[in-house]
């Protein structure tokens, strides 16, 4: 399902050495010359405090996201090598790694952009067309928050919750994804919240509900609205 598109486009990026085009619909995900690269954070590591600690942000970006970048590049290279040898089996073996690391790269790239320091683009409430759509599809902004927090709390293991837009109907919805499965197919990811333990454990430990409560103080609604109206 959702992984198919990713595989295909990441595969293409890997095969064409000159492919500098970002993956469809993933404008913020950097792939240069078919290589994934770690995007710069649009704010300092400490800028989301006290809601997300500087230590978490630094490890999350510099270590975890970097590992996904390395992993997706390794998978793409291995697929290229396998293809050069006509070894379909070896190429297929990389598919789960491509989905996992490629998904990790995509998800984190979207996540950094849909966060912002509180009072400097982060927190507050959505406005304009996005707010109208939220009111229509969730009843109210408060309901959206409640439903998102319930979805996040219900994730059994590592995963993400996403506010998404159905590309056909334009309606908003809420989905969760396990591991690093990216949102794709007919759903446009508008805002993601990382529910992996590494996203909050150093600061919130087992009290993940507190993290889910605090993250709303740093949601970049301007960025979410831009994705919505695209």
């Amino acid at each position, binding site marked *: 399902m959702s992984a198919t598109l990713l595989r295909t486009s990441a595969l293409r990026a890997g095969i064409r050495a000159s492919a500098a085009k970002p993956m469809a619909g993933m404008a913020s995900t950097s792939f240069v010359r078919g290589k994934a690269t770690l995007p710069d954070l649009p704010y300092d590591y400490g800028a989301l405090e006290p809601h997300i600690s500087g230590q978490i942000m630094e*490890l999350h970006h510099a*270590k*975890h996201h970097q*590992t996904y970048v390395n992993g997706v590049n390794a998978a793409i290279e291995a697929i290229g090598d396998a293809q050069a040898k006509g070894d379909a089996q070896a190429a297929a073996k990389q598919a*789960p790694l491509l989905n*996992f690391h490629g998904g990790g790269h995509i998800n984190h790239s979207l996540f950094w952009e849909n966060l912002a320091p509180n009072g400097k683009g982060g927190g507050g409430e959505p406005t304009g067309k996005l707010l109208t759509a939220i009111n229509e599809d969730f009843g109210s902004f408060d309901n959206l928050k409640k439903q998102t927090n319930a979805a996040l709390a219900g994730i*059994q*293991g*590592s*995963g993400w919750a996403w506010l998404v837009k159905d590309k056909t109907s334009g309606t908003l919805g809420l989905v969760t994804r*396990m*591991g*690093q499965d990216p949102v794709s197919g007919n759903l446009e990811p508008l805002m993601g919240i990382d529910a*992996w*333990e*590494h996203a909050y*454990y*150093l600061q919130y*430990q*087992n009290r993940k509900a507190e993290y889910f409560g605090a993250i709303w103080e740093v949601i970049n609604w301007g960025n979410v609205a831009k994705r919505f109206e695209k």
Partner: protein
Amino acid sequence: MSVGTYYLPALPYAYNALEPSISAQIMELHHSKHHQTYVTNLNNALKSYSTASSSNDIPQQIALQQAIKFNGGGHINHSLFWENLTPASSPDAKTDSAPTLVAAIDKTWGSVDSFKATFNKALLGIQGSGWGWLVKDAQGLRIVTTKDQDPVVSGEVPIFGVDMWEHAYYLQYLNGKAAYVENIWNVINWKTAEKRYKGSAQDAFSVLKASL
């Protein structure tokens, strides 16, 4: 129908007894918070299941199965895990305490070192939350990984498990999970492993007692 209430088993050692391999802070949160949450949510799910069952509410019974699997799995996995760890200073932490099991490991993987290397690779290959287990089945010894809290309950005997959820190591090892995987070997309880190897799956699960 009355249902049993599961409870958090006491750790067979102090929270700080596995240091420096696993910090006391991790052990305390892991046991008193995470494991407790699985126990609490398992009991809640079983109670709801019992109500649904006595009112012949099959949709509700089906709806509750995932909560039972996840929280029951969490309770089973952690109960087995605590028992298959021991302070590094204990004689039980030496492979000498598992002569029969070690002979079987040698036969399967060539040596304990080569087994450890294979096990570590399996642990580090887990994508997301999960566990790695050494199990015994009709064919012999095997390494399996399970996602999230899926328990090993299909007839295999769990010999020992290693928790690869980030909460099991993150406060101490951060993103350096390879170091956690390396150090866990210092605190594996080979005596428990030997006992489980010689016993049945039922014997291994006997630690899971419910109070009625």
